[in-house]
């Protein structure tokens, strides 16, 4: 299969991107200035991320659809207001995670943003679970552009008037040059920002306008260091079919109301794990010194027994040191527990820590 290109491919090339194949797409890993500079620019100013490879799934329906989706997602969708968004998961019967996603209530149904590598499979699973009852469009005609960082609100407002009034995890339709644009205040960097869904033919022109206003293109490399500092999970690393939302320490995303009532896919396992605990759980890990513990690094206790594995690890430019996440046995998951990480045959000391590694005080009215 040929690798796909997003509508911003030409712009990436013009901006001297280094490309990498990701989930079947040619995506920019970094631009000329490099990952650390791109990371800092996002934290201090405003970064643009092409996330058009992600799935935009529109499902159309009314009350029936809400009922049917509540049997799939552990969310109180009946009380989800128009244009409001929730983070959730598509799970197996064993509560294993097929994908993590953002679901937004729109006028005639729901918009679900899916991971690029999972979107086709998610579509199949959902179509089957919904018995083909509803109109479902995995929209390849639309691009998705994220703009993240403290100056993003000012920059996006100067292009699309009104976006500054959006609250965190809510969205709305806007019109620009006769194009319908759906904007949500959300993102995956730990910064204030927006995700903009717009037609492919308008994506290049729109993004160049953001660049003219002072935002810069940021590659997948910095997207990874930013999300890791923010303590956010990445599918295929922290999350997989073998992990449940409780093990992934994401129980905050499961509606308490829905846990009481149950009756969603995976609810038996989720309820059991919430009541009796889990064997392994996701934690933040801070290595001492500068040593970087990458994915698959083995984790040991002070008494030298193997207690888990790293799922993501890199150097955090804003933390100015190494950061990691991984799964450890529950009894070693308390904050400040001393652990050891085996890197290149040597064991290096590290500490279990709270997440995120980097937290910004959001602007008023947001979060």
């Amino acid at each position, binding site marked *: 299969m040929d690798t796909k290109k997003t509508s911003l491919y030409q712009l990436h090339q013009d901006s001297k991107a280094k490309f990498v194949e990701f989930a079947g797409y040619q995506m920019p890993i970094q631009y000329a200035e490099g*990952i650390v500079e791109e990371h800092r620019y996002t934290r201090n100013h405003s970064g643009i991320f092409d996330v058009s490879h992600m799935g935009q799934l529109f499902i159309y329906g009314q009350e029936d659809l809400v009922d049917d989706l509540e049997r799939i997602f552990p969310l109180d969708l009946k009380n989800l207001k128009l244009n409001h968004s929730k983070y959730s998961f598509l799970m197996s019967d064993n509560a294993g995670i097929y994908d993590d996603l953002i679901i937004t209530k729109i006028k005639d149904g729901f918009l679900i943003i899916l991971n690029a590598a999972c979107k086709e499979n998610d579509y199949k699973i959902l179509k089957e679970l919904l018995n083909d009852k509803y109109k479902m469009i995995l929209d390849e005609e639309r691009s998705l552009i994220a703009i993240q960082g403290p100056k993003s609100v000012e920059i996006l407002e100067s292009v699309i008037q009104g976006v500054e009034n959006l609250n965190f995890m809510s969205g709305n339709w806007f019109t620009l040059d006769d194009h319908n644009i759906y904007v949500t205040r959300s993102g995956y960097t730990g910064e204030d920002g927006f995700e903009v869904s717009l037609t492919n033919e308008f994506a290049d022109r729109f993004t160049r306008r953001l660049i003219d206003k002072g935002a810069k293109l940021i590659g997948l490399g910095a997207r990874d260091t930013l999300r890791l500092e923010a303590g956010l999970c990445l599918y295929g690393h922290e999350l997989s079919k073998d992990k449940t939302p409780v093990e992934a320490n994401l129980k905050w995303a499961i509606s308490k109301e829905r846990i009481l009532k149950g009756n969603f896919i995976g609810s038996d396992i989720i309820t059991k794990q919430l009541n009796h605990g889990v064997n392994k759980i996701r934690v933040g890990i801070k290595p001492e010194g*500068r040593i970087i513990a990458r994915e698959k690094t083995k984790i040991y206790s002070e008494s030298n027994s193997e207690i888990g594995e790293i799922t993501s690890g890199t150097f955090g430019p804003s933390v100015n040191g190494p950061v990691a996440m991984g799964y450890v046995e529950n009894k070693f998951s308390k904050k400040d527990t001393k652990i050891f990480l085996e890197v*290149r045959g040597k064991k290096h000391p590290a500490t279990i820590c709270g997440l995120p590694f980097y937290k910004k005080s959001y602007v008023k009215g947001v979060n």
Partner: protein
Amino acid sequence: MSEVKYSKEHEWIKLEGEIATIGITKHATEMLGDIVFAELPEKGSNVEKDGTAGVVESTKAASDVYTPVSGEVVDLNQSIVDDPSKINQDPENSAWFFKLKIKDKSEMDTLMNKDEYDIFAKESSA
């Protein structure tokens, strides 16, 4: 008079008497991206030609550093361990990695000169 040579693993080596200073090339740093971690061999240890003698890591991945010649490690550049970004800033000068007392001067003959390396680097990145 000193002689600078280059390896296929993108190290440079400068020989003065029997002491060789070794680092990674500018081309290597451009391929690696922002370097955020460096590990050096132990002082006093013996390293063998083409064996690993350190590690550099970028935000993306870890890469081994190889020694282009055999010898005893007689000095280390601690400043690049403390601030690895120096390697990106001045790779072929102040950001050297380690110094060796070399065993066999003829090992230098197997390495490339500047012109040969520039062509090699250009071809290997094409």
